């Protein structure tokens, strides 16, 4: 329960089933709830920013971050070290972004002409940045998800290669080669953008 609903209610009526308040125990480990909520307070905006860089879409970014924290909450008891929670949730956000990109790609392929009158949130977000940024971001969106991720972690978050490797679940060598290929591809794509 996220907020008090009616602790002051009289509870005098028994028209339903005769259940008592004793059947509504405390929802459980408040420490996990509090810890995850505190982590969210501290890092939600940063992670939404990371997700919007990956996805270019604010609502989708918020959903991915929300899901990542719910996942962290569900697995809180399995964490060896709560100090690693941020790393866990950042990886979960990146995984969520990959899934969202795959889904968006499928939806874009299957969208009917009848369904296309919307102006997407991503367009609204892009409208807030200048033409040069739009060109780079547009090119970034056309990269494969893994290449995009490598560039975002390297140049947006300024993470060192070992940490990028951990976040992406690959070797540092793969990070190097992926980043290199991504930059080359991005250079070509930026040239193509009018």
């Amino acid at each position, binding site marked *: *329960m*996220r*907020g*008090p*609903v*009616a602790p*002051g*209610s*009289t509870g*005098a*009526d028994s*028209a*339903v*089933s005769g259940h*008592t308040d004793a*059947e*509504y125990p405390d*929802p*459980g*480990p408040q420490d*996990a709830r509090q810890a995850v909520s505190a982590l*969210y307070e501290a890092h*939600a*905006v940063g992670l939404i*920013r990371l997700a*919007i*860089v990956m996805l*270019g879409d*604010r*609502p989708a*970014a*918020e*959903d991915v971050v*929300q*899901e990542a924290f*719910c996942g962290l*909450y*569900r697995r*809180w*008891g399995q964490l*060896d070290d709560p100090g690693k929670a941020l790393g866990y949730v950042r990886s979960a956000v990146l995984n969520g972004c990959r899934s969202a990109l795959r*889904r968006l790609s499928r*939806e874009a392929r299957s969208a009917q002409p009848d*369904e296309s*009158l919307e102006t*997407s949130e991503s367009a*609204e977000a*892009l409208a807030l*940045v*200048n033409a*040069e*940024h739009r060109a*780079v*971001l547009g090119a970034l969106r056309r990269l494969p998800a893994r290449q995009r991720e490598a*560039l975002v972690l390297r*140049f*947006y978050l300024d993470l060192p290669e070992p940490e990028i490797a951990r976040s992406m679940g690959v070797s540092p060598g793969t990070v190097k080669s992926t980043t290199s290929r991504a*930059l080359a591809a*991005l250079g070509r794509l*930026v040239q193509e953008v009018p």
Partner: protein
Amino acid sequence: MNTLEDRVRTATQAIAGTVAPGSAPPLRLPAGPAPRRAPGRIRRWAHWLTPAAAALAVTAVVLGTLALQRGQGGLPDSPGPLPGGLPRYYAALVQEPSGPWWAQVRTTVTGKVLATVRPPLPYTRFSEVAATPDDHTFVLAGIGPQGQPSVTQLYALRVNPATGGVRLSRLPIPLIPERWRVNALAVSPDGTRLAVALEPGGAQRPRLQLYSMTSGARLREWGVNTGRPGAAPVVGFMSWAADGRTLEYSYPVRGNGAALLDVTRPGTNLLGNSTIVQFPKWADLTYNLTMTAGGRLIASAAYITRGNGTVTGWLAGEFSARTGKAVHVFYRRSFPGGHPSFGPGTVWWASPSGRVLIASPARHGLGPDQAYTGLGVFTGHRYIPLPWNGRIAEAAW
């Protein structure tokens, strides 16, 4: 000239900068307890189970999705989040053949009835229902007694996620006196306040009141201070933004519009304290709205009309809370030539981002008392039907 690396840095920082500090929506953790597990490393042999577990998980997801698409359940009813953050339960007002409206608690995915609830005497039926943010507590308005001027008692109906049992208890809010009908209810995002829209029965004007759910104290009241008494339009549905200060209410201002009330502004003039949102003329949205928790956009299902009022289709989409214009359409279905007996549906619930909706796309006719044709989840451009009962008149998630 900047290097390509610098250009990536500045461009990514620019789009990241569109997310303002403090603008994250509230975190919505599952209502149930977090799984307890003794700390410690997973045994080495357990890693061999991972591929098998993954295969089983994929199978479960596929089977679950197929079952969901058939509207036969298949997703767990046990405590835990549903895909897309869908609430597990909803409360519905069901019209019995003999007339009175009972409340039913149902599971979202399977439609299974957990309990049928009748109001305690002397109240004879429920007239309105609203959901609280915890996804298993609801507010009901019970009216009675029969044959006399009716008063309204407000109740909390709680579902025990562990057992599926339900319990009804009176809220400490004073009785709503005779001559006033509760037209809409909405619980604030923190679960502490209840907005009540009242329709007058006599020479009064509509009112909107805000009560403390814990003490029952009336915190605020707004009224319509202009127009002929008894002729002013009434508030229909209401929904809150996550900030807890913006209350969207459906009110046929200037024809096809809605209003956003800032509950923190001083004053008692309902319209004076509200921002009016005007919708496009091609869609009748006024009574079919809900506000996303983010409060930026309004998600809606609507029917599309042409000049003569012919229904030419329906859609589920998001509309700008600032301009009223459509900014995203989730699902759209057209009826070339029009559909003469199709009424507007409604959006019952929207995820914080507005990207996942629970909605009834349409009614069997144009009148507000016509039954909804069905229920489903809109996600992406897909509509996944859910079980529905045609006798359900109102529902709340």
